[in-house]
């Protein structure tokens, strides 16, 4: 066994020497790539199991069993689905705009994955710790609509086009309410950096999270997030009963799979952002509870963020199993005439709170 130990030690020495010999820029790129892999691979697996749990939970809520054929209790179902999508033929409609038709799924997926760069996972782990992180997230999520519009237009199909139009109008409408809700978070957190926003919620206990002083904004943000990702009950862009499947009606196989991945990555992003902005991100809910101090329950970690994200993911599935679809004019009314006024009023309320120094603005916090 000695020769093996010495060989491993030699290899380690060689590796450290090679690492030090690399130029600074190359090392930076390698570390960044590694960080991206560490984030993206669990994200894709999370998307796969999101679909599995969605089918299971919606099944249970509706008194059905859900997928239970592939693997034990159907746990291998998502992999079977991915395999099926990959080996299907990619059909390009004859009168479509070929280049844009093939580019649209990629255009949808790239911003959906790129946004994750600025989302902090725990105290030390964020790929890009940028000062204008919140603006970056807003900018990239607003680019996600291009994939949908391009898919709808390039398919040269009336259903797809209708779905794309509905989707684009909906996203543009709810982005404004979302942006205003984030202005409130910005006022409370005092920073555009997501890590700093979480750190601003670090206080004595759960009561210092932003969800309490900003409760209306929390509701507006999460519901707008559901609408922004075109999820039930706001899924008129897909509307199976009226326009078949909306913007991706002409897509099959892996093209459809990429849209699916982008949509679910965006949903998980909304849960992560809601947890970060309002529920203290990676902070523990048991911090400050007497008797628990210094145990693992009171310490901040990625596990708490994952737990909060899971809670919101469950809400996504719950909504889908419970609510009937909104009518289109009701969606627009909710976005423009209800949510935007609520956010504007609450920003004014926050101004008063800041002037009187209550909540997150209290002196000395």
């Amino acid at each position, binding site marked *: 066994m000695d020769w093996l130990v010495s060989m491993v030690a030699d290899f380690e020495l060689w590796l450290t020497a090679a690492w030090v010999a690399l130029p600074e820029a190359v090392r930076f790129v390698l570390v960044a790539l590694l960080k991206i892999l560490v984030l993206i691979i669990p994200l894709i697996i999370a998307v796969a199991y999101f679909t599995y749990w969605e089918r299971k939970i919606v099944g249970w809520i509706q008194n059905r069993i859900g997928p239970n054929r592939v693997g034990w209790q159907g746990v291998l179902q998502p992999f079977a689905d991915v395999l099926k999508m990959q080996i299907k033929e990619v059909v390009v409609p004859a009168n479509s705009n070929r280049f844009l038709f093939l580019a649209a799924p990629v255009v949808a997926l790239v911003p959906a994955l790129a946004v994750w760069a600025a989302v902090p996972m725990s105290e030390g782990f964020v790929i890009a710790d940028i*000062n204008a992180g919140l603006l970056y997230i807003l900018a990239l999520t607003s680019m996600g609509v291009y994939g949908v519009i391009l898919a709808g*237009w390039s398919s040269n199909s009336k259903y797809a086009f209708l779905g794309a139009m509905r989707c684009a109008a909906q996203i543009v409408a709810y982005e404004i309410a979302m942006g205003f809700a984030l202005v409130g978070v910005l006022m409370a957190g005092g920073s555009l950096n997501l890590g700093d926003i979480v750190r601003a919620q670090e206080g004595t206990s759960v009561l210092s999270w932003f969800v309490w002083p900003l409760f209306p904004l929390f509701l507006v943000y999460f519901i707008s997030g559901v609408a922004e990702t075109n999820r039930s009950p706001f899924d008129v862009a897909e509307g199976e009963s009226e326009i078949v499947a909306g913007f991706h009606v002409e897509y099959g196989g892996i093209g459809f799979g990429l849209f699916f991945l982008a949509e679910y990555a965006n949903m998980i992003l909304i849960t992560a952002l809601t947890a970060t902005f309002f529920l203290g991100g990676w902070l523990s809910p048991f911090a400050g509870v007497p008797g628990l101090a210094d145990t693992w329950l009171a310490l901040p970690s990625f596990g708490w963020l994952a737990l909060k994200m899971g809670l919101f993911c469950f809400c996504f599935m719950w909504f889908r199993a419970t609510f009937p679809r909104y009518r289109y*004019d009701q969606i627009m009314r909710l976005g423009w005439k209800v949510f935007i006024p609520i956010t504007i009023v609450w920003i004014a309320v926050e101004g008063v709170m800041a002037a009187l120094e209550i909540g997150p603005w209290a002196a000395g916090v």
Partner: protein
Amino acid sequence: MISTVLFYSFAAILLVAALGVITSRNPVHAALFLVLAFVQSAALWLLMEAEFLAIVLVLVYVGAVMVLLLFVVMMLDINVESMREGFTRYVWIGAVVALLVAVEIGHVVWFRSSGLQFLSTPAPFPADYSNTRELGSVLYTEHVYAFEIAAIILLLAIVAAITLTMRRRPGLKAQNVAKQVAVRREDRVRLVKMDPSKD
């Protein structure tokens, strides 16, 4: 070195995209080329450490303005042939305007600013320098009146545009959502109790 390579590649794509905007026959393609041009110029601004402006350019122009423009362009039925009819008649006006613009750009770049300081590369700011904070502190202190007046003018423009385009046609049917929400079961459904028929 790397930033020079990045600059030239972004600039090259920007030029190609800008040419595509005016040469492509399909208006949707032209709009998409414009989106690409915006994204590339945002990348150029990022290289110049103007990250706030770069992100806002993507947020406002790519994320909102161009989406609405695409929306309109996709629904138009543009006849390209009839658009090209007057080309030879108007070409001299276009040529004169193009020449003027070229002369002005040349004037600014070569004559007016020759030997000035800002042509040399400025020293980069330290890593903890926040572009957003600096812009905000200038906007909300020194230029606060200009900023607020600009905001009021924009708000006025929004209100004016809505009032100009909102027409109340007579006989228009609309839903009263408050009434719809307030409806109870008793208003719509009547439960009737009756004896089962005998025959």
